[in-house]
């Protein structure tokens, strides 16, 4: 255990935790906005997969990482339009619709990968960007201020989401239609438009999450996300539908994963119980959800389609 408590290992663990947390944070923040408007999207993982593939394909074709991120954002927006039309205008059951989006994303990204790429080929990864002065700080400089722009974006979006939800008219409308859409409607708030916009933002964030994942790894393969989108949905509950809470959940998930990997690498966790230890992040999340479930309540209109009739 002494090997773990060295500066270099602790700093590397913190850096790994932040890398691991980045795609979860982006996806969960977007889902938070959607859920605060009353729309559950279980298709996050599918949107991430599609965005990740198209970002990867863009880098493979052009070598341009930022164009790849933009393409992923656009894919997220397109999927957002589809999901919004299905759930807001056609008032389809959100759970089933989301699973449909997930299955589509899983299958279509797989199909496209086979048709257009075939064998995995490495692409350039996002470079680290050192923030002047801060990057040189002892202990915290490397994990916090020598990261990729996508990571800075993810963590920067947390306070922006707080402001969006709590300090703007749009945010007030989002919360209103998520709690009591009939009342919001009677006050002249367009429930459809508000939910449509919230879904679009949520899916755009999911698109960025897919881009963050694939550009951090520099590779794509079928089902790259391995269910990250579903964990992101769980993190929204974990964070009690609040951006800071969601960030805490994503970081906790990243820290536990990174610590378990370091302990395995150092031999602190014996190989014989390695698989058991790998379940720690999931067990922790479920445990926290059980504890939190009694203290917080979901948006009252979550999963409920709105209709004037």
């Amino acid at each position: 255990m002494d090997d773990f408590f060295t500066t270099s290992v602790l700093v590397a663990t913190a850096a790994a935790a932040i890398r691991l947390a980045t795609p979860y944070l982006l996806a969960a923040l977007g889902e938070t906005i959607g859920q605060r408007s009353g729309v559950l999207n279980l298709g996050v993982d599918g949107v991430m997969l599609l965005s990740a593939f198209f970002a990867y394909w863009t880098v493979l074709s052009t070598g341009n990482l930022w164009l790849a991120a933009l393409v992923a954002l656009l894919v997220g927006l397109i999927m957002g339009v589809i999901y919004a039309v299905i759930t807001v205008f056609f008032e389809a059951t959100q759970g089933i619709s989301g699973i449909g989006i997930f299955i589509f994303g899983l299958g279509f990204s797989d199909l496209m990968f086979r048709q257009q790429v075939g064998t995995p080929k490495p692409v350039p990864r996002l470079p680290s960007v050192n923030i002047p002065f801060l990057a040189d700080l002892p202990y915290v400089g490397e994990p916090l201020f020598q990261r990729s722009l996508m990571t800075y974006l993810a963590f920067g979006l947390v306070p922006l989401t707080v402001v969006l939800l709590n300090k703007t008219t749009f945010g007030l409308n989002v919360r209103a239609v998520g709690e009591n859409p009939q009342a919001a409607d009677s006050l002249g708030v367009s429930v459809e438009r508000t939910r449509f916009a919230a879904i679009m933002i949520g899916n755009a964030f999911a698109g960025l999450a897919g881009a963050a994942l694939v550009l951090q790894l520099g590779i794509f393969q079928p089902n790259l996300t391995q269910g990250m989108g579903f964990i992101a949905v769980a993190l929204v509950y974990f964070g009690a539908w609040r951006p800071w809470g969601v960030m805490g959940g994503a970081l906790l998930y990243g820290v536990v994963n990174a610590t378990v990997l370091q302990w395995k690498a150092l031999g602190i966790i014996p190989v014989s119980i390695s698989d058991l230890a790998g379940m720690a992040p999931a067990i922790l999340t479920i445990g926290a959800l059980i504890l939190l479930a009694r203290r917080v309540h979901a948006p009252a209109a979550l999963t409920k389609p709105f209709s004037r009739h």
Partner: protein
Amino acid sequence: MKTKMRFTARLFAVLGAFALLATACGGDDDTPEAGGALTVAIVAPSASDDLAFTQSMVDAVNALDREITLSITDGTFIVEEAAAAIRGYAEDGINVVIAHGTQYGASLAEIAPDFPDTTFIWGTATDTQGLDNVFAYHPAADQGGYVNGVMAAAISTTGVIGVVGPIEAGDAVAYINGFVEGAEAGGATVNVTYTGSFGDVALAAEAAEAHITNNADVLTGSAQMVVGAVGVAVSNDVPWFGTQANQTSLAPNLVVASQVYHWEVVLEEMLALRDSGTKGGQAFELNMANGGLVIEFNDGYSLPADVKAAAEAAIAEKSAG
């Protein structure tokens, strides 16, 4: 009525002609002639171009020296989906169904007895579960692991080597155990991380990062998620040893060597047995002696001559049993 009768007569005539044609074209026995055309299906857990487990089998079937019509259902990590695909192929009359995954064993035990004319090939597994229409196969992956380990220890300057594995099972654990044995024989310290997943590329990448943090200057790993770990090796300019398929394309300057599975060696034996009327009941091992396991060196990596000589000596030792 007359018109209708004429139409009916024509219909029967056309159907009759088709029936005669089908009879003329079809055989009365689904066992083909020796070395003849075969329909083969592969059901496998990962992508057919994963540069690892599944691709090794697809490449092997394509390398067989006979006319094969190949169908593939890949990405079936969920056993129930795989079972449906296996049964579906058998119902469709496919001659040989390859269930390429240890986890498919229980499903095969249920399905195989229902299709006695179909040959099922299952692995990695060391026995056929007593089924006489099932051939089993497994690679002695520890052999190539040992050779890779010998080389890794020789080129490591820190004396620390990192291994990224999936779940402690199947040929992955055999490869890793062999690798550890070879590397430790060369005086290296080997740290092994099983990520707990065959597909989680992100975890594999972070596992590789953790090894590098802990002074590893050579890496290896097994299963399809290692593409993430190879990416980390490239970013840190760390040599990589591959297994299952040739992984040189992932890092042309850093992959030192790959242990490549040539399943076609045992598949040829199985199909020859099938030609002679034996539809299963035997288990086969892929090893260096029978040419099923081959160490493919990467010419793009300048391996010191003495290290290559040590590797070739280890290969000779393993080939001799």
